[in-house]
């Protein structure tokens, strides 16, 4: 059967459109020209400058602390939530399901301002803790959805088989359910980690003095033209790590 070439052409166009800006960034990070209009020769100068910029690494450290702790918390909460959603059918789970999906479609700015209103009205000082709370909140729904997808493929007769073979309920969960569920939980955790590292809008609303995460740092660097080439170098490193994380996560999800 003859296939139309239009869908393939559009696919190619979309992929080029999605990647062109990233390619330009990466190329510019090695470009001796300050503004990246023309190629003026290969340089690692911007990477050296970035290496020496202590405040960037300090921000990275803050970001990583938040991302690791927030995704761990979201993994625990999200896995329990997914298990409950999968196991039970009741009005409670209908409410639960609605509550889990709503944050997914809530614009960042609304989540940011609502959490800010909560912290202002309860007198909680914004800082590391408030950023962590915000990140757990928006990561929770994503982890739940990934684990839920995994649970839907899970063959629950395996648990019965383990029980028939003499395993206690706790043992069956520990030795059968958890190992098989682990790739899904890890994939959810990885997604939460990337989302947390990436977040600018919500963090901006609930951050306080001394909690400049990496995206907040990038935003302030974008305002001073002196540091623009350094952003190219930083972006290249971030895109490379995103690539590694994405490949890792897709491997985890594929392993059945």
């Amino acid at each position, binding site marked *: *059967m*003859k*296939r*139309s070439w239009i*869908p393939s052409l*559009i*696919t190619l*166009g*979309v992929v080029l*459109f*999605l*990647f*062109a*800006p*990233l390619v*330009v*960034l990466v190329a*510019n990070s090695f470009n001796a020209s300050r*503004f*990246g*209009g023309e190629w003026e020769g290969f340089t690692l100068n911007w990477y050296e400058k970035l290496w020496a910029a202590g405040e960037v690494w300090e921000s990275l450290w803050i970001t990583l602390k938040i991302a690791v702790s927030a995704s761990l918390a979201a993994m*625990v909460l*999200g896995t*329990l*939530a997914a298990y*409950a959603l999968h196991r*039970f059918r*009741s009005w*409670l789970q209908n409410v*639960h399901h609605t*509550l*889990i999906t709503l944050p997914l*479609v*809530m*614009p960042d*700015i*609304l989540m940011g*301002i*609502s*959490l*800010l*209103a*909560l912290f*202002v*009205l309860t007198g909680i000082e914004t800082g590391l803790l408030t950023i962590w*709370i915000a990140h*757990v*909140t928006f990561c*929770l729904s994503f982890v739940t959805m990934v684990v839920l997808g995994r649970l839907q493929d899970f063959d629950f007769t395996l648990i019965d088989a383990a029980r028939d073979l003499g395993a206690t309920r706790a043992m069956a969960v520990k030795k059968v359910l958890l190992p098989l569920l682990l790739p899904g939980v890890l994939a959810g955790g990885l997604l939460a980690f990337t989302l947390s590292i*990436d977040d600018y809008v919500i963090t901006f609303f609930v951050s306080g003095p001394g909690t400049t995460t990496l*995206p907040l740092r*990038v*935003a302030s660097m*974008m305002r001073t033209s002196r540091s*623009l080439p350094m*952003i190219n170098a930083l*972006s290249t490193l*971030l895109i490379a790590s*995103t690539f590694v994380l*994405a490949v890792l996560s897709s491997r985890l999800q594929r392993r059945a």
Partner: protein
Amino acid sequence: MISGSRGSKQWLLTLPSLAWLGVFFVIPSILVVLTAFRPADLHGGVGAGWTMATIHELRDPAYLPILWRTVWLSGVTTLVCLVLAVPMTFQMARVGPRMRQWLLLLVIIPFLSNFLIRIFAWKSLLHPEGPLTRLLVWLHFISEDAMLLNNVGAVLLVLIYTQLPFAILPLYAAAEKFDFALLDAARDLGAGPWRSFSKVFVPGVRRGLVSAAVMVFVCSVGQYVIPQMVGGASDEMLGNKIAQRVFSDRNLPHASALAGGLMLAVLVPMLVVSIWQRFGRKEAS
């Protein structure tokens, strides 16, 4: 009915996430709406008592063009994203599994790359000294002094760029489940490629189409970083006003009133869709 131990087990498993979202999602959302009826104090906080003054301030005619711009930019973004994503996911679902994994990865990588960095990338691409401007001048498509940056076109372009994966991912999930034998059947019955695509495939991925549209629209409506970074002074969206009220004017009640309006703009289309889907499901069964 749920038996006693099963019921308590259910509560035990549900409570952690339910309580977390209750405290940090539901209560804050209600607080924002309530804050709109409170007076502002001078330190960026909220004063005592209740007032309708902020709601009256919203009738400021200066908000109308901003509201309109927010809606049309989000609408056009949604439309363009769907027009690109439907044929793309059609293609993704037709190719072999290895190619499919690669294409999915190619969509996810820009999607997961830092949001600010992607906007920054467009800023340097569209810069007057940047490669795109030079290329277009060289091709005589634009004049030397044309500005690609700081206008509403740039805002729209970057909106489409950042929202496109939100359209592709749900549509791909739907296209993957689509039974492509139906297309062969349509062809056998004499339908051309366009007819079988538009009359069989597009209705077949209807659910994915709806969730993609809602996702893109909702995410665009709340944008403020994109207009701030690649738009001009007259290209602001509702989100910019909210951010300005919070950070420049330090007037949380006014920002909350605007946020309440935005919340309506998000919840109304979702409500319509969920009613439509419930109704549609009844019809199907």
